[in-house]
């Protein structure tokens, strides 16, 4: 059984025969079999009606497409069915608890969706005259105000399109600040804890920095001693990237000291805000010495994950980094008496001395659709509700930790924040592993927790329930997981078979990677190969 980078098996054990009812269609009751559009559609079928072109004008020069792309079409009824059938092969928040640690899978209010679809937001163009989109710009201004007040920072860059993009934003601002100090070439070392999310080191490298890993202390926080050693020679220190609450679900106790030390060393403090949900309204990163922090609107502020995106990662900045914020920036134009919101698209348009934007992160000015959803969510919760939400998120996590620790092994002692982290120690090294437990949860009707992350904990199981779970759902989950954990401790071999009740059995990731089939073509198909 081959292993991947994280040491988890990727080829399933061979399958025990299951005496199931067979069907001619391949569908099983409500579970519909659905083939690929390339197998069911045809190039001369379409699901749209369009008016006939009037006459024969062509100004394509020599570039008329010679042959069709071969794209299959489906009539509207077939199209609806294709996607509705496929949708039912997915798990989703709306179906149950989605305890993916570090992902903050909370309820996505439908009011957000309705507001985002108001023509006044959905049907406006980013390059319309600003006078024609003042309401849309009001939304951005109001959201900026919320984000700045909730974080206690100086400014916020709105264009980052996701968390990782926000990391780029923050780290590029740091780089620009170092350039302004004329130290960019020397200060190239960024400290990153082992426990950090993969995007952190990847971002640092992408911004031309070197990554220097800090060890984790036995209590799951940054090892302060090790950190100080790293600062022994501060000359090449650019800064630190620290997640807080961290990826072990713990609050970095020494965060202010860390901030002070990094500043004394001449570096900046980038805080990964993915876990902001745990502390909204209880602590402001600005009061902790943070210089830059991205906020995942698609985590903390309830915009839907959509099966992988889109997200939005506004990045708040300290006074020290504000001058280097990217373009465009929202600005106020009072010329002509009336207050008009405008976008500063070029450095020259920026008010205030010493403004040196590091550049531009993307076209236009950010994920407006997510801004509308996030603002709608903030207005719904209000400052009071957001605080309550953070507290409930933490309470829910601690409740699960308390219920589960009877059988499972908490990675660290004490209370957790918004997520509870367990190691596989309770398995005493028997052949069952984290993966098997995760897959068994699927049969019980739950999405598995985050597995094998953070890397500092062996066989890590990171469980984040969020505040939108009821006590009842938490108990159902705890009961199911405890019973699985019991079986795991007894090394029940049937766990290797899990999931048995999902739309599919375990998939062969090794084969997928060894002989990649990334697009459909009539000839190549692993199924056929397997058949051979």
């Amino acid at each position, binding site marked *: 059984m081959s292993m991947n980078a*994280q040491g988890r098996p990727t080829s399933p054990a061979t399958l025990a025969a299951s005496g199931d009812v067979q069907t001619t269609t391949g569908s099983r009751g409500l579970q519909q079999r659905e083939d690929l559009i390339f197998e069911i559609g045809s190039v001369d079928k*379409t*699901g*749209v009606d369009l008016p006939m072109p009037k006459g024969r004008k062509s*100004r*394509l020069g020599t*570039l008329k497409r010679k042959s*069709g792309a071969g794209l299959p*079409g*489906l009539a*509207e009824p077939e199209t609806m069915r294709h996607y509705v059938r496929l949708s*039912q*092969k*997915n798990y*989703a928040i709306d179906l149950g608890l989605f305890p993916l640690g570090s992902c903050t899978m909370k309820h996505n209010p439908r009011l957000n969706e309705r507001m985002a679809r108001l023509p006044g937001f959905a049907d406006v*163009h980013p*390059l319309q*005259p600003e006078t024609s989109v003042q*309401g*849309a710009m009001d939304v951005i201004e109001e959201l900026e105000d919320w984000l700045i*007040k*909730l974080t206690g920072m100086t400014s916020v860059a709105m264009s980052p399109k996701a968390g990782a993009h926000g990391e780029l934003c923050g780290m590029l601002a740091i780089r620009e600040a170092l350039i302004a100090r004329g130290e960019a070439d020397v200060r190239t070392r960024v400290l990153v804890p082992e426990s950090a999310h993969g*995007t952190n*080191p990847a*971002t*640092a490298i992408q*911004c031309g920095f070197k990554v220097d890993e800090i060890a984790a202390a036995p209590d799951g926080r940054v090892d302060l001693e090790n950190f100080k050693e790293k600062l022994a020679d501060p000359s090449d220190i650019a800064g630190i990237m620290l997640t807080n609450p961290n990826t072990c679900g713990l609050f970095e*106790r020494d*965060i202010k000291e860390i901030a002070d030390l990094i500043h004394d060393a001449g570096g900046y403090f980038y805080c990964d805000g993915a876990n902001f949900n745990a502390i909204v*309204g209880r*602590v*402001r990163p600005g*009061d902790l010495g943070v210089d830059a922090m991205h906020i995942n609107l698609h985590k903390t502020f309830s915009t839907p994950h*959509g*099966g*992988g*995106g*889109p997200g*939005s990662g506004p990045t708040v900045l300290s006074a020290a980094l504000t001058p280097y914020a*990217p373009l465009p920036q929202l600005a106020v134009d009072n010329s002509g008496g009336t207050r008009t919101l405008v976008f500063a698209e070029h450095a020259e348009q920026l008010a205030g001395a010493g403004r040196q934007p590091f*550049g*531009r992160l*993307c*076209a236009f*000015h950010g994920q407006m659709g997510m801004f509308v959803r996030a603002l709608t969510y903030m207005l719904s919760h209000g*400052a009071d509700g957001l605080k309550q*939400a953070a507290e409930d998120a933490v*309470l*829910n996590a*601690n409740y699960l930790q308390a*219920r589960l620790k009877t059988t499972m092994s908490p990675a660290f002692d004490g209370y957790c924040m918004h997520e509870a982290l367990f190691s596989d120690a309770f398995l005493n090294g028997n052949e069952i592993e984290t993966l098997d437990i995760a*897959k068994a949860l699927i049969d019980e009707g739950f999405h598995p927790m985050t597995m094998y992350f953070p890397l500092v904990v062996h066989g890590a199981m990171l469980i984040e329930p969020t*505040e*939108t779970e009821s*006590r009842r759902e938490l108990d159902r989950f705890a009961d199911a997981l405890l019973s699985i954990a019991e079986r795991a401790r007894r090394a029940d071999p049937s766990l290797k078979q899990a999931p048995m009740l999902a739309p599919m*059995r*375990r998939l*062969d990731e090794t084969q997928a*990677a060894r002989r990649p089939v*990334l697009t459909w073509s009539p000839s190549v198909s692993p199924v056929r190969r397997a058949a051979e």
Partner: protein
Amino acid sequence: MRYLPLTPEDRADMLHVVGAESVDSFYEDVPKSARLKATIEGLPDHQGELAVERHMSRLAAKNRTASDGAFFVGCGAYKHHVPASVDHIIQRSEFLTTYTPYQPEIAQGTLQTLFEFQTQVAMLTDMEVANASMYDGSTACAEGALMACRVTRRKKVMLSGGLHPHYADATRTLCEAAGIEVVQLTPAIDGERALIDAVDEETACVIAQSPNVFGQLTDLSPIADAAHDKGALLVDVITEIVSLGLVAPPGEMGADIVAAEGQSIGNSLNFGGPYVGLFACRQKHVRQAPGRLCGETVDASGARGFVLTLSTREQHIRRDKATSNICTNAGLCTLAFTAHLTLLGDKGLSHLAELNHEAACDLADALGAVKGVEILTDAYFNEISYKTPKPAHEVIVALEAKGVLGGVAASRLMPDAGLDNVVIAAATECTTDEDIQTYAQALTEVLA
């Protein structure tokens, strides 16, 4: 609060089970000085749906929409009609409220649509492989440049004068941070051709756009040849993907990497985002590609299934060795794209493209007939550039006063390019003959 299922009793009971006095116990690691006593100031308390809906609706009502009359704004985002069924599909709970498909046994819905999406993008661009999306076209372009540098082991990229300035800026920002030299050729309507002479042995890639930011179409084959002669790659940028219904695809012209904006298919204007970045390349370079890839495989019972694959390129496995730091991508927007494209098919797409082209031709004819106006684009798809006697930004403002959103002043995107009198205007299937007449009439008055 309506989104919080815990009742006061629940909270009390649960604290008891946990053995904590109050939630404050959970926050004891927070430095005393930083603990907030009261709720944050200057922010409102919670409100009901009706109140929030009224507030947001008021803000929405302050905006003029693309459907309120004559509208010709393009330059990288286009007003197209999205079928109602597409919006219904992407609002399905099972697609909307799920995460990245890390657990393939319960994510085949998302995975199969991604596999279909990748295949459609590859077919459409005539490339070998495509990934599961980037944030948008501009970040796809920047990633394309970085990838070209990895593939060629060179550190210099060359941007055409027809490349969308936002794309150029985004690319420059990322490349320079990574220590890559960026050469920007001067903006010009036919800005692509200049790449042929400019490309040299240090060049990792030339980045060309067709139709370019002015709407001009260019045959990229000679550029591809020139680049390949010098061992460089051709990165082809497309901001209006509908054009491929009628225009020769990048693969046919020798592109090595395609970075495109997919908004036009399935996605609304959304005031700039979220959109969907399309990224396609050659099979042999795929291990250098950024972003997620979905691949076909089998499950333990031998049934066909799909999984995210080649993740050893990605940050969550490879960390500082990753090809990119991207994690969350355009997810649901790819679903909108693939669903709309499934409705269209070859037949619908080429038909749609024809209508767009025809509208642009009609627009060019109508505006070209206006005294003082000179049409600058000779080969185009659904967007044209024209020269006016007056400064373009003044023309745009005057047109707006007459209810016409006439396009984008080139100077708004390229302040110092000496193109102050150039207007870039797009037409689509949503443009009516009446809209075009209104525009021509209004422009005549403005220039009179």
